[in-house]
């Protein structure tokens, strides 16, 4: 945990559908790499956290301290990928759905 970078970046997370009780009706996949975003969006933000212009301004305002109580920008998913899920519906028919935004590809400060 300690050697993970402090700055906003993608962290590994594997989701096992058995852990959330969905394996009863999900045929495939049994688990998938979802990842998550975590880390600081402190001023000055490095380019790698791909801050939006708004996040840049917000972090400067916070650093200067003009307005009290302004939080740091948030480290959130930027690019995400979809996941095909094969499952049984209530009538026990097999259904395939391709859900968007199920896995994190990159993180950014927003």
């Amino acid at each position, binding site marked *: 945990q*300690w050697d993970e970078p402090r700055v906003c970046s993608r962290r590994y997370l594997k989701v096992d559908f*058995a*852990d959330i*009780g*969905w*394996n*009863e*009706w*999900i*045929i*495939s*996949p*049994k688990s998938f790499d979802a990842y998550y975003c975590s880390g600081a969006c402190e001023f000055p933000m490095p380019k790698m956290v791909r801050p939006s212009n708004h996040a840049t301004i917000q972090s400067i305002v916070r650093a200067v301290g003009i307005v009290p109580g302004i939080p740091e920008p948030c480290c959130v998913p930027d690019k995400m*990928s*979809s*996941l*095909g*899920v*094969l*499952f*049984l*519906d*209530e*009538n*026990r*028919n*097999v*259904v*395939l*759905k*391709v*859900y*968007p935004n*199920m896995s994190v590809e990159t993180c950014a400060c927003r």
Partner: protein
Amino acid sequence: SHTAAARPAPPAAADGLAGDKNPQRSPGDVAAAQSPGAQDMVAVHMLRLYEKYSRRGARPGGGNTVRSFRARLEVVNQKAVYFFNLTSMQDSEMILTATFHFYSEPQWPPAREVPCKQRAKNASCRLLPPGPPARQHLLFRSLSQNTATQGLLRGAMALPPPPRGLWQAKDISLIVKAARRDGELLLSAQLDSGEKDMGVPRLGPHAPYILIYANDLAISEPNSVAVTLQRYDPFQAGDPEPGAAPNSSADPRVRRATQATGPLQNNELPGLDERPAQAPHAQHYHKHELWPNPLRALKPRPGRKDRRKKGQDVFMASSQVLDFDEKTMQKARKK
């Protein structure tokens, strides 16, 4: 059309995803574990589509959803009729295409016998060659849930006799779209060859099925995965299995959280208290607020002189090494 695995699956496995008798394994697990040979054709077909479309960015049939519908077999007027319940389709799913998959074999009419004539010595009895295989027709009807009629005829297709037993697929998009538009989500299909069905047909691995390729307009809505996947367990009976122990939880999930063993120990060194001594009611600071960076700068140790000034008891409380009086030390040395 595509040819199916020639060997028929054993009847017990033909239930496809009906679920294992073993209460511990969920139908989802059973379905995933079965080999293609043991599953019915619709499960094999859907697994094949899953492998094809679960690669990054692929879209099934231009949409994002494929629904399969298994047949329910009934005998009406001594003919086998297959019923499909399409009610599980969501309103947000726009139908792109619908296909009807069925297995058919050539239907030979029974050969007719011809009385033998013994005119010439070596005449031999012969049978008339059987006529051409019978032509089959596919009839589709739709009806709403609770009507007893045979339903409205939605379509009829003449089928050329197949050269051998094989799976075929027919596009029934217009039939399904019209039936859904009229709110009739129960579809029936009849393979009619004009002859009465010999014996009672049964659903086996060659049971027909319907696939509907759709574009779910709600799938990009927030939390769309929860709408279809976060639900009660459709296979868990209300009360636990009769044989199960009263307190056994039917939930097969493995608990991963480890219980805290005993009182939680913190990592601080004993006696190195973080709270500033001068403010007796100082609010409780969380350690990471006091340590701006992860590695804490070590405090310089006070010199020997002013340690002695603080007096024995304070020194004892804050020191890190235990000290004993002279007498005890002498005893210890003797021992």
